[in-house]
């Protein structure tokens, strides 16, 4: 073997240096590739786990806080208007809304670290909620004694809700949604870096292999071949599992978007119902422009509904049509001179009782459809995220193991050659 040492004086790189260099570069690239792929995959899986276990529940909690607060506005107005009647849907909804808001607020409150905006919003909600319920309680107590001042308390509570609590809930929702989006975005970046590095590693191994073959006249270095094969396994696995995971995350994001839209649509419906109820409660007073607000909210609702292709959207559109008709039926009670109580009693019944052909019934149907739509999309979101997580299963651990073995193989293969050129 020493004869080969003497032959290459003209060569720019001595065999020994070349072997050392090839060994060092290949090993370094294998190690860096292993670290990069395993850390990246583990990170993505951690992001997806965080999305499913923490970020998504909190985003949904924040979403529910906003939605339930809006509904509490409508439901309290409904309960107020129907103080004289028992068994309206408003009373139950108000109680359910508030207990859900409290539970969700506790969940959001448990993790406000890292966001001053979220802490401020959370504080505003925690401080404002008891004031809101106090005002509603006063309004309801007054209503049961037929004291007109109750309507003023109701309006004050509604203004507090709309001017302070809902914006705070909106902030909380934004922060939680952004956190979820950050998880999804981090897990959904493409695998260019990993694949380029794998390619570079394979090229380095092949170059080293060629160099060894030329300089040492040996046909194939089994250690390097083994290392190349293992790196190729990592590359192929990443090349297939990675884009699968990326697709799953992209699909998940689409479902989340659809859920978001369904919820925005539902919020418009809840707001519109609140407006028509408060409009009836405040009728004849120099306050509010609830009918205008209703028109605005329903315009939003209609444009969102038009573009909704969810499974429940058709039924929601039908219900929205009957709601439109039911609301028109209320207008005479509001604008035409009335000879007796009939129109009032009828308006109250249609607005507060789930009677067929009434606003309340139509609203409840729209609301239910949209919430089911949102729930379905959220379930699909979770399924897609889980699928994405599953696509990467085993890759991180396997990459570590393959890298270790590849390093050992390359090291062994090169050690044998290097020993010859000491």
């Amino acid at each position, binding site marked *: 073997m020493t004869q080969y040492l003497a032959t290459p004086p003209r060569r720019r790189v001595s065999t020994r240096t070349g072997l050392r260099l090839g060994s060092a570069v290949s090993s370094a690239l294998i190690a860096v590739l292993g670290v990069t792929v395993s850390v990246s995959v583990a990170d993505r899986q951690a992001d997806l786990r965080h999305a499913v276990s923490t970020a998504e529940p909190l985003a949904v909690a924040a979403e529910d806080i906003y939605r339930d607060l809006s509904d509490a506005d409508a439901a309290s107005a409904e309960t107020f208007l129907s103080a004289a009647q028992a068994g309206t849907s408003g009373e139950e909804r108000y109680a359910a809304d508030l207990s859900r808001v409290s539970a969700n607020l506790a969940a959001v409150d448990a993790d406000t670290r890292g966001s001053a905006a979220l802490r401020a919003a959370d504080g505003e909600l925690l401080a404002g909620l008891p004031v809101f319920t106090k005002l509603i309680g006063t309004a309801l107590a007054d209503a049961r004694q037929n004291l007109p*001042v109750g309507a003023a308390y109701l309006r004050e509570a509604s203004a507090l809700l709309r001017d302070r609590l809902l914006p705070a809930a909106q902030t909380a929702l934004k922060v939680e949604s952004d956190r979820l989006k950050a998880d999804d975005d981090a897990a959904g970046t493409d695998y260019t870096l990993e694949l380029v590095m794998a390619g570079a590693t394979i090229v380095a191994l092949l170059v080293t292999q060629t160099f060894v073959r030329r300089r040492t006249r040996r046909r194939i270095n089994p250690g390097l071949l083994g290392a190349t094969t293992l790196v190729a396994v990592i590359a192929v696995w990443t090349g297939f599992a990675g884009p699968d995971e990326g697709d799953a995350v992209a699909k998940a994001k689409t479902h989340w978007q659809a859920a978001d839209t369904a919820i925005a649509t539902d919020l418009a419906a809840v707001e519109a119902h609140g407006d028509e109820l408060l409009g009836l409660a405040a009728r004849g007073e120099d306050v509010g422009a609830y009918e205008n607000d209703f028109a605005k909210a329903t315009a939003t609702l209609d444009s969102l509904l038009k573009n909704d292709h969810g499974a429940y959207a058709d039924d929601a559109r039908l219900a929205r049509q009957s709601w439109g008709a039911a609301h028109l039926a209320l207008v005479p009670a509001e604008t035409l001179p009335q000879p007796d109580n009939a129109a009032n*009693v009828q308006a109250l019944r249609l607005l507060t009782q789930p009677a067929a052909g009434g606003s309340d019934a139509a609203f409840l149907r729209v609301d239910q459809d949209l919430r089911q739509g949102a729930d379905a999309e959220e379930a699909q979101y979770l399924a897609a995220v889980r699928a994405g997580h599953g696509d990467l299963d085993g890759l991180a651990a396997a990459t570590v193991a393959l890298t270790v073995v590849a390093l050992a193989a390359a090291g062994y293969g090169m050690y044998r050659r290097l020993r010859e050129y000491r």
Partner: protein
Amino acid sequence: MTRADQRNRGVGTALLAALLTVAAALTAACSTLPAPPSAASSRAAANPPQLTPFPDGVTTMPPGPSGGVPVSGCEKTPRPGPLPPPGQMPAGSTMARISQRGYLIAGVDEDSYLFGYRNPSTDPGAAPLIGFDIDFVREVAKAIFGSPDKVRYKAITKAQRISSLTDGSVDIVADIFTVDCERAKQVAFSSDYFDAGQRILVNQSSPVRSLADLAGRKACAAAGTTSIQTLANPAYHVVPVSAVNWADCLVMLQQGQVDAVSTTDLILLGLQIQDPYTTIVGPRFTYERHGLGMPLGEPDFVRFVNGVLEKIRADGTWTAIYTRWVGDKLGPVPAPPPPDYQ
């Protein structure tokens, strides 16, 4: 030893160690301690902001140049002729037009307790609104049709009291309408059907007992009323707070955001009855006459309504209505206010 040599010299081995270190660091990163709460957040928790809101649309008015006008001097109204029997209105008259329609259209308040407010009854056949003002409208309907039920009520806002008459959407307005010269240019008023004067509503425990005690304190009145203008009189040194309506003033009094509510005593009574822990104090410091509003250009209808008022003053109906809604809560039941004819 060759294996020791290999370990010392193999570049890959060192990188493998690095790889394992990174993996260990990753595992450790999952169990970091939560950051301690900052000093700012614990201070905020110890002293959270006060959140009891004001009713929507509340403003504090700067003192203005205007003051209460005791009696405007524009109360003169056409003297009534003989009252035609119900159902036999003179041909071509405004009353005949209303009679042909089959019902009187009245613009009334829907949220003034005791005056015009929603009937709590869930009986569809009951009147939609009840109150002192409503009873006078029913008397006018009774004089036209023979039946007090032939009225259709249109709930109007304070701002609509004049516009609903000028645009012809109602025949008559009964909505605590103080007679003043500005309004008398736009609508016709009947003779005075109730007198009232501005007084002060306070919590029973309040030291305020008169207008003088209110100096430097906050008093609430509804926007766009003569009462808020009176409170803005610089001579009284009151801090006027303008709310959207009277119920909002009561809310602010109950929430401790104003020291008093001030307007005519009959409206104050409507608030006081809703909260027995408040009381009306001090003498009247304005004197306001109230009329039923009608469109200009229908003097026959004004004379007719004045005739109805003349009749019910005389036959005890006025006293019965006053007793029904106010009774002796503001002192003994007064005699009906005298008319002031042209």
